[in-house]
């Protein structure tokens, strides 16, 4: 870890410290750490635990429970394909197949060169204009396989 990140972690932990008589909020602390560092590497679990005065097991337990807490940095662009039932009914599996073919990675993997990470998500509430693909914070609805290549080009 470089020096810059270490400072941010300290600052984050300081901000998340609970007052006397209060319980520490492990989840919100981990989300704040992730916001600062981009992920929550396993090697900071000890420091977080000490900062919150809880056990490392408490922190690791929360970290491993929530799918949106990441222990590894994702690629520069995070692509998520919605697997909610409305997307499934609109044959999002075909869009997923195209994404896999274009990126040459499977769900949960990152492309060589670290440009794209492909993940799935269960419903983003965009069901009425499904299938949905989310790249970073941008939502794309009514996706069809033939649009995948040009969509990816915007992020290359």
């Amino acid at each position, binding site marked *: 870890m470089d020096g810059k990140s270490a400072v941010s972690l300290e600052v984050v932990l300081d901000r998340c410290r609970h007052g006397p008589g209060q319980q520490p909020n492990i989840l919100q602390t981990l989300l704040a750490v992730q916001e600062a560092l981009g992920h929550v590497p396993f090697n900071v679990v000890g420091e977080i635990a000490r900062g919150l005065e809880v056990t490392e097991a408490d922190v690791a337990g929360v970290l491993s*429970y929530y799918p*949106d807490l990441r222990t590894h940095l994702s690629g520069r662009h995070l692509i998520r394909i919605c697997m909610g039932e409305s997307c499934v*009914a609109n*044959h999002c599996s075909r869009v997923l197949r195209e994404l896999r073919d274009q990126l040459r990675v499977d769900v949960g993997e990152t492309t060589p060169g670290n440009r794209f990470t492909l993940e799935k998500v*269960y419903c983003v*509430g965009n*069901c009425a204009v499904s299938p949905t693909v989310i790249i970073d914070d941008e939502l794309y609805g009514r996706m069809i396989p033939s649009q995948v290549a040009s969509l990816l080009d915007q992020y290359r």
Partner: protein
Amino acid sequence: MVRLYLPNDTSSRAAGAARLAEVWQERTGIELIRTSARGAFFLEPMVERDMPEGRMAWFNVTPDDLPQILAGKGGTPVNEIPFLRGQTRVTFANFGVTQPLSLDEYRAHGGLKGLEAARTQSPEAIIEEIRISRLRGRGGAAFPVWHKWQVARETEADRKYVVANADEGDAGTYCDRMVMEGEPFRLIEGMLICARAIGADTGYIYCRQEYPAAAHTLRAAIQKADEAGLLQSHGHRLRLEVVVGAGSYVVGEETALLESLEGRRGVVQARPPYPAEAGLHGKPTIVSNVLTFATVSTILARGGEWYSSMGTERSRGTVVLQIGGRVKQPGLVEIPFGATLAEALERFGGGMAPGSRLKAVQVGGPLGSLFPVSKLGIQICYDAFAKAGAILGHGGIVVFDHETDMVELARHYTVFTAEESCGKCTPCRVGSLRSREILERIQAGRGTADDLALLADLGETMKTASLCAFGGRAPYPVLTAIEHFGEEFRRLTK
């Protein structure tokens, strides 16, 4: 200057409204007003303007359509859109009309009347009004709302909480998202009424991570409400905060949600005690779905009698359906309880997407039962669904077409439940995984007839022995797929 109305909600943006706004932003002579969405998403992006004959709408607009809109040609009167005309909009009455963060517009369209009424009433009278309305929780469990409030009211404590469950995880549903993005003051108003009724001084809105726009809009709305001096409960300032989660479907279960709110693993806890007696930090807590709070304000404004005059004997008021999948007209539909599923699909779904034929309909999210064409006569109300072993859930209706492979769909459900099981109880943790393995064996052509019996057996164990509704409902989509489309499974087994 021509004033054009363009929705700013997540789905409208994804359908093209964001692009229109981007292109038209610099145009002189037009003023873009960003509203909530009407819910007729198949028409989005939809642009509206006021004309002498009333509000006119243009459908599926592209940037090049602007001259035609400015000339006032080719529009359709909004009140003649069949999809909207056939609805009874109560909670969603102002959608598509107002700007989400304008408190003045909210007030001008009937907002805050419920809160004003509540402030002239005793807590007991508020609870009585909710009892008369016969409102049941809209998150899925359908528990009588007044009863929960009564328990929280009567439980002595130095501190009580109001929590809005905005972890809208049921795939196929988005009405909570629409409320939060489109009329956030409505949710805040409902929570304030509840806070007054039970004596709470702190409120939380637990919003799922997948809804960034909703969380953003809510925070802005809370600030505006605070500045306007609205956040008052019993003469004190009500602390109201948005808390964003980190995924996990099970967190939508109320005890798991409270665990998550306290920062722990979102694991289900055994009940009793129920949160209304001992919830957040061990204090009496009302956890209700966003839609429930959003309905409360109208009930207080217009009276419980009025609300209960709609619907069926044990399902009063309106039901908010979200019709999706392979239909021509996906969108949000609010109608009184009591229509049949077939009627709702026919009147609003508009038939199947070109080239596809209806095969199955799932109601109530990823744990809901599947219905074949022959079973669509079921009445949309809690009783009929309970009797059929199905759930209305949060009102999600997903239509699958003839190209859907039911074995693969069943496997999809088990992948979901195996991934999302919180792991606390064995039937769900192990049962979901074994179900997935059995289906994968069948798909690989190595299944036997015994495997289908084993799936049914596993399902029965999960239904009866799981700790919460997640494990208890998880077998239903799989078992109803086998029940109604058994041939597809048997074809693959020896």
